């Protein structure tokens, strides 16, 4: 096909008149059955380079993409153009995914987007035996390289696959961000005479700023005063999931319209927020970097990072999502340069901790190897056998598979891991090399913060773009830097906020039942209202179960009966409400105070904690009446919890009971690194010495620190068995990802 012929078809299907030169060069190679690596900045039109040929090929084009949001947007766009495209990912029900696979098998699709993790799915693998494939695309190809900034083990299998594909099947790998080293790594991995096409990376509409601050508070304060003044709508990236919550509560407190987004949200909430972002419903979405990759919004006017990313590539990639319409766009990076007692800058610590914690110790690798030498185990069984955290087991597993020491084998529908005969020794050299590389990249990120030259030039140089552009538009070149000049009233607001914001403990049970082939559930919301929901659909909120029952009265008899079963089932569960903590453990002075008392002989918990805990209690439970305070009997910190509970009892004028007792030895929960073992540790370990006095009572259940919630749930079970009507969990601090 000549370019002229192709452009006539392009006009008909996609409505564009012409291809850019590099687009046509790519497409032409694909038509010739070649393998191509295309490195072009966001907004270049990389998608067209596979979408157009896909419409011209006879069979199916499969696009492996790690970005669910991108799949959704592109499929919608393609369908609007009358091109038959679908996707397979974890956001859809298994039935929807199966239907998509059937459509692909029956030749009813031209384009199929699929998450790389699917390569482990047997239904998909079975289906691939019969599909008529025309082309394979690897989107975000930098994720296939361990030297890339976002390596994903799931892509390892895709690479193995590509190596096995027949030589004349066109393969396209695309990315916006690849250093020379990553480029070479991708070329090597995809092999088969691959041709690379690389474009320029400069984004002329970008306005780059760095704001150096002296404390975490200064970030919150600057944003309080300046966020409303920024033009348009944008994103705020925080380094951690818990910070998305804190920043977004702060903006809520200030009356600035924002919402929070992180990978912990269910897929419906994520979709809703992504839609809201498209429609500019909020000034900003506060998010971990899980949001934004692949979102097709051209007018993101600003992106603010409250923490530095791990490298300049990460940064370029993350800000690359902004300003795709070419209009001026602000990119602001905060950096807290206060030094701790060891002379380390505060904002260096988090990315450094990710590097340090990113790789488990060699001892833990050997633990996993040794248990697998005994028998084949699934992931959960490995966690139980080794007492390792799920995140650690995942990393170890991926590395051991990568090194050919273990393999993942399917047993029916479950996955097990097998040690391999003649397996090589664990190679730790690559781990050290990778760590060195990551530390180097982090130093480069600090260099970006401190550079006095053009920031865009810094990024382009770093990414190996050798073109000679005129780089402007940053606070080191043509723009006035932002200054910190915080008003006293703003500072007062922050202090008030700190004393009125209390994290929820999600302890209330959730009961599900399938009614007429739809899955319904009952649980409580953060305010402890009763929620009736349908999975993936709407939720309805009621003040009490009784009110919910009156609504059900109007349903047809059979359906009513089914819902009553659901309600009764729920009522038979533990009577736990969603509880409250006075603070997160790690993000305020609360954690430090607890630590002093518990582990440094600091005496009773200080009074400011009592004040704060009472405040949290009143805010959460308001005027509700309680009959009794019980507290979790101690494992290792003596009477600290008991003494504190007594003080609570005096102030609240609610009697205290000392009758919740342990019936067996427990280890401190922090010894256990995963939820399964924490649950086992406390199972059947509690009782109440005078059960008869509990019947009909409403109870406050107090503890100092809330971690996995396994203890609270176990005690909730025991108290419910003895007839309490309501249990309200109250703790001083809630941990974030096991930070004690």
């Amino acid at each position: 096909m000549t370019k002229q012929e192709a452009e006539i078809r392009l006009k008909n299907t996609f409505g564009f008149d012409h291809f850019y030169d590099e687009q046509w060069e790519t497409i032409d190679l694909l038509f010739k059955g070649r393998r191509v690596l295309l490195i072009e900045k966001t907004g270049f039109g990389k998608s067209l380079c596979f979408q157009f040929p896909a419409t011209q090929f006879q069979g199916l084009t499969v696009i492996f993409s790690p970005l669910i949001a991108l799949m959704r947007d592109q499929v919608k766009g393609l369908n609007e153009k009358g091109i038959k495209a679908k996707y397979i990912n974890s956001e859809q029900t298994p039935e929807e995914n199966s239907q998509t696979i059937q459509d692909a098998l029956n030749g009813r699709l031209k384009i199929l987007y699929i998450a790389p993790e699917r390569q482990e799915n047997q239904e998909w693998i079975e289906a691939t035996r019969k599909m008529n494939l025309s082309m394979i695309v690897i989107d975000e190809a930098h994720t296939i390289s361990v030297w890339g900034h976002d390596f994903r083990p799931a892509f390892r299998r895709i690479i193995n696959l590509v190596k096995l594909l027949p030589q004349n099947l066109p393969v396209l790998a695309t990315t916006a961000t690849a250093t020379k080293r990553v480029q070479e790594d991708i070329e090597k991995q995809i092999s088969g005479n691959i041709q690379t096409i690389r474009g320029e990376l400069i984004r002329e509409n970008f306005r780059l700023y760095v704001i150096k601050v002296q404390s975490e508070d200064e970030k919150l304060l600057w944003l309080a005063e300046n966020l409303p003044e920024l033009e348009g709508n944008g994103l705020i990236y925080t380094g951690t999931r818990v910070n998305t919550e804190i920043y977004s509560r702060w903006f809520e407190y200030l009356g600035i319209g924002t919402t929070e987004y992180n990978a912990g949200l269910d897929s419906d909430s994520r979709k809703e927020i992504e839609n809201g972002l498209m429609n500019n419903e909020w000034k900003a979405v506060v998010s971990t970097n899980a949001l934004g990759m692949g979102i097709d919004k051209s007018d993101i006017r600003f992106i603010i990072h409250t923490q530095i990313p791990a490298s300049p590539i990460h940064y370029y990639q993350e800000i690359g999502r902004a300003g795709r319409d070419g209009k001026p766009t602000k990119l602001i990076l905060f950096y807290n340069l206060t030094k701790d007692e060891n002379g380390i800058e505060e904002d260096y610590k988090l990315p450094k901790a990710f590097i340090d914690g990113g790789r488990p110790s060699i001892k833990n690798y050997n633990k996993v190897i040794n248990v697998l030498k005994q028998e084949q185990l699934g992931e959960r069984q490995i966690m139980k056998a080794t007492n390792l955290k799920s995140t650690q087991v995942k990393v170890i597993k991926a590395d051991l598979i990568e090194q050919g020491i273990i393999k993942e084998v399917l047993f029916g529908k479950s996955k097990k891991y097998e040690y391999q005969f003649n397996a090589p020794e664990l190679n730790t050299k690559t781990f050290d090399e990778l760590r060195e590389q990551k530390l180097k990249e982090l130093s480069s990120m600090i260099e970006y913060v401190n550079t006095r030259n053009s920031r865009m030039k810094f990024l382009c140089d770093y990414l190996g773009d050798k073109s000679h552009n005129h780089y402007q538009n940053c606070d080191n070149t043509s723009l006035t830097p932002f200054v910190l000049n915080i008003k006293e009233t703003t500072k007062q607001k922050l202090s008030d906020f700190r004393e009125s914001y209390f994290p929820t403990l999600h302890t209330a049970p959730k009961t599900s039942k399938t009614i007429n082939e739809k899955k319904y559930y009952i649980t409580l919301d953060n305010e402890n209202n009763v929620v009736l929901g349908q999975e993936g659909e709407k939720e309805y909120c009621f003040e009490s179960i009784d009110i919910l029952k009156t609504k059900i009265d109007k349903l047809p008899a059979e359906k009513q009966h089914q819902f009553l079963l659901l309600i009764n089932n729920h009522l038979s569960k533990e009577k736990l409400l969603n509880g409250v903590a006075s603070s997160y453990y790690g993000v305020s002075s609360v954690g430090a105070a607890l630590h002093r008392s518990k582990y440094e002989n600091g005496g009773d918990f200080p009074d400011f904690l009592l004040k704060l805990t009472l405040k949290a209690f009143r805010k959460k439970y308001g005027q509700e009446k309680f009959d009794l305070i019980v507290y979790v009997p101690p494992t290792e910190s003596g009477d600290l919890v008991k003494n504190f509970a007594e003080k609570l009892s005096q102030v609240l004028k609610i009697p205290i009971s000392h009758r919740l007792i342990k019936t067996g030895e427990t280890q401190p929960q922090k010894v256990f690194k995963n939820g399964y073992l924490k649950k086992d540790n406390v199972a059947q370990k509690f009782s109440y010495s005078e059960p008869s006095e509990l019947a009909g009572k409403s109870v406050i259940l107090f503890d100092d620190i809330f971690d996995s919630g396994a203890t609270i749930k176990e005690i909730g079970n025991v108290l419910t068995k003895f007839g309490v009507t309501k249990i309200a969990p109250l703790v001083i601090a809630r941990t974030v990802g096991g930070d004690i």
Partner: protein
Amino acid sequence: MSKELTYWLALAHTPKIQIKKKNEIIVQLYEKGKTIIDFFELGSSEWKNTYDLTLSEITFLDEAKKVLSNYAFMVEDLLEQGYQIIPITSQDYSPTLKKNLGKTYAPPVIYTKGNLKIMKEKSIAIVGSRIANDISLEFTDNVAKKASKDYKVVVSGFAKGVDKQALDSAIKYKGQSIIVLPQGITTFQSGFKKYYKQIIEGDVLVLSSFHPKAPWSVQLAMARNPIIYGLASEIYVAESSDKGGTWSGVMDGLRKERSIYIRKSNPNEKNANNLLILKGGKAVDLEGNIIEYKINEEKNLIASEPNLCSKLELSSHIENKIIELLKTDFFSAKKIIEILKIDWSTRKISDFLKSRQDILTMKGKPLKFTHQSAYNPLQKSLFD
């Protein structure tokens, strides 16, 4: 090699082309220094002219070519799950299997899991009935024990009875084993669980020559038998009836001049062991030691198998045996007498063979004969 695997599976599982033809293609490629990828990149005219493929064979290969990407997905999944895919040209392919089955029967691809070096060791197969008597099981245990002591690998078929005993005994005596599956290798999950430790410690190799997804079937169980015989340097027969898998396997083996040791059965046992001894198997005792075969026992032996005795007397029987033998290779008349242990003269054999149109004569001294179906003028160095 790994990028060729996609193509190997495509060739191995193309239907309606005989193994022999597939191996001939492989031999030609091997001799020309070409890869299997080169072969799949050829057009139908080259397939026809250079590789002597028929129109129907070309049609099936064309179909296989279209689904190469699909095979790529399957290969990736198999390797990922720790299965080895071993083409006949691979250094890892069992030399014993290749030698014993030759280009006519050696599967172009085998699938394995475990210690590949086991295939390079000296090996014995212990075969016999699924419903074997206690004596047969004791014999199996004895032979497996001796083999394990002598560092010989025990090959068995993972059926009930003798097969299972052979495997269990080899494991018991810390020997090495090959389990030859009557099914695709991915359908053996319970076995992989059961023999996990033996596999990862290198004492058991699981092997299948069938499509990796094929479920167990009677046909595959039958087709699996020649693979067991092929993988072994020596074959021990614990118990055989006068028909079925063991019988036909041993008969086939004897025709191919394999070393086959048959447990001499007691007079009160109802099996065809002693008849197999008569047909050329070497008699062994309960311990697997070779025992003197006395001609005067023949009568007694045959007396316990009256109906088979009469079969033996059918005049066409020997003729058929000769023809069957010649379907496998070239033989001189003298060799034919030796192999089949028949009391014909070389003259009688030559006259008989020259009278038949389906027999080809190769000039030279002595004259050699072959059946036309076995004739192939090319030197097959891959199999020599």
